């Protein structure tokens, strides 16, 4: 192949690749600016506030020394409670070895975290149970 033809083909391959990259880069830069819209900021802030609130409630109910049992949670509640307390307390599958049971409930009354709140049940002496609601 003649040198000028080889160089022309090279230019075509280079141009094809550069145009493909450049067009996608422009599209990427545009779409990235849409990743920081006020709606997304609001949604992320709400989510942060929700977990912050539940964390405050959990700290008002449970200490780091507690062994916590979650009574039959749904998968969603299980994941949410794990996110809230799984990093600083011990969780157990056996109620007998726990010191406290913790549940995530929903209500429109009282202090809630966007409609959710935490409740603990502790065994008291004499077989009585103490039910407490989280404060946030």
């Amino acid at each position, binding site marked *: 192949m003649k040198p000028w033809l080889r160089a022309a083909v090279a230019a075509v391959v280079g141009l094809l690749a550069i145009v493909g990259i*450049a067009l996608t880069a422009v599209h990427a830069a545009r779409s990235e600016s849409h990743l920081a819209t006020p709606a997304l900021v609001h949604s992320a802030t709400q989510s942060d506030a929700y977990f912050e609130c539940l964390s405050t409630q959990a700290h008002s109910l449970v200490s780091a020394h507690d062994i916590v049992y979650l009574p039959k949670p749904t998968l969603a509640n299980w994941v949410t409670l794990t996110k809230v307390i799984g990093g600083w307390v011990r*969780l157990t599958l056996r109620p007998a070895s726990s010191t406290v049971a913790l549940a995530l409930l929903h209500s429109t009354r009282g202090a809630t975290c966007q409609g959710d709140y935490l409740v603990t049940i502790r065994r008291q002496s004499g077989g009585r149970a103490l039910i407490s609601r989280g404060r946030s």
Partner: protein
Amino acid sequence: MSTTGAVVLTLLVLAASGVVPVLLAVGPRLVALPLLPLAGALCCGVAAVSEIALFGSLLLWFVLWAVGAFVVSAVVLVTHPALRQRRRRQLAALRHGVRPLLVIGGVAVVAATVPMLWSLKVPSVGFDTRAIWMLHARWLSHGHTFALAAIRNRFLVVSHPGYPPLVSSVMAFAWRLTGTSSARVGVVMVALVNACALFVAGWGIIEVARRGAVRLHAGQRGQQLVLAAGVLVAALTVLVAGGVVGLFATNGYADVLWSFTAVAAVVFGLVLPPTPSNLAVTALLLGVTGLTKVEGIAVAGVFVILIAVRVVVRRQGRPWVPIAGAAAAIVALLVWPLLTIIAGVPSDPSISGQRDGSLSSRAHSTISAMWPHLHVVVLALVCSVLGGLFLRAVRGRLGLANDLWPWVALIGATAVLAGAYVFGPGNVELWLATSVNRTTIFEALLAWWIVALWALSGVAGASLLERAQVPTRKPAAP
């Protein structure tokens, strides 16, 4: 401490811990700068493994490993005068100045990385970030006893306790070091480590142009053209990468980090010449890849084997050196999975249990789900076919490896990931729906990098035209 203060302090400490080992292994190259925090992050990951396996806290092990790496590097420098002299010569060469285009290239790649970080304006903490990475970080920040009990706790199986610890260890390290244990600090730290990894991958393209421009013998103008094209292509490809990863770059997910480091490892380990310095860069990148995600371990293992084969094929005599190096790397990659088995970490629900559906239906679902994220592979294939037909000689003159190496890496990684979906357990539709947009990040990025390298080869080939025309010009009449 404010989030900015905490993040800057953590980044500085991570970088400082890696200065001597990185400069010793990689040499005084610009790519060493973004590698410093990555080396620190790798040190964090290794410290987390040690904390869980043995005793003590993350900070204790970080200090031990950082000091250990420093001492070993110092001993190597003292006992290897030839290496010391080589590094001294390289430093002396730096004092004569760096090409202005390379400085512009560094600035351009940094600038192209910024849009990826724009979404840090959104204080977003991803679902998995809170459920997995941040939770593991809390465990690590409580020390050996708590961390070991947590990863063995069957009740916490939904948080995938067997996932590798690097990302979580960076978060925990930032919290413990600065005393600011907010989710925001953790997420911003991961985003900045991602940015460092992207810089390394982007710089790989400029490195190709820098080396190629000299080897091409295309004259002063040709050199300038190839270098300028390298800067342009690197900046554009980094912008593209930001678009591919989207919000995952800044919401604390781990998929972006291993994808960036794996792409950079392909460039430095399978495209650029396998010099000791490039292999050191690759080793560090594969270390990060293997300690970041489970698929990262598998992909890093495939790359280690490919790099070893490439080095053995190129090397004259003593093939046992790269083979022994590869064996050591594979053993290092297997430390975390073995530890999870020995420690009795409960099986990850996504990789245990019954398989739903036939293999063919799962394969069909997997291909259908992956394809929309991998259209770029078509462009890469067209460039590779045209380039393979017409630009092989130019690629050779640029000093680049055969294009088949990155393609084998791409196919190998895709086979590993698709194989997990097809032969793995559970409902594949649900699994794909919740993960395929993240697990295909690496393949899409590598395809873009293949396109970028052909773009450079094309420009280099075109720049040879002027050179080729020189002998055909008629001498001017006297």
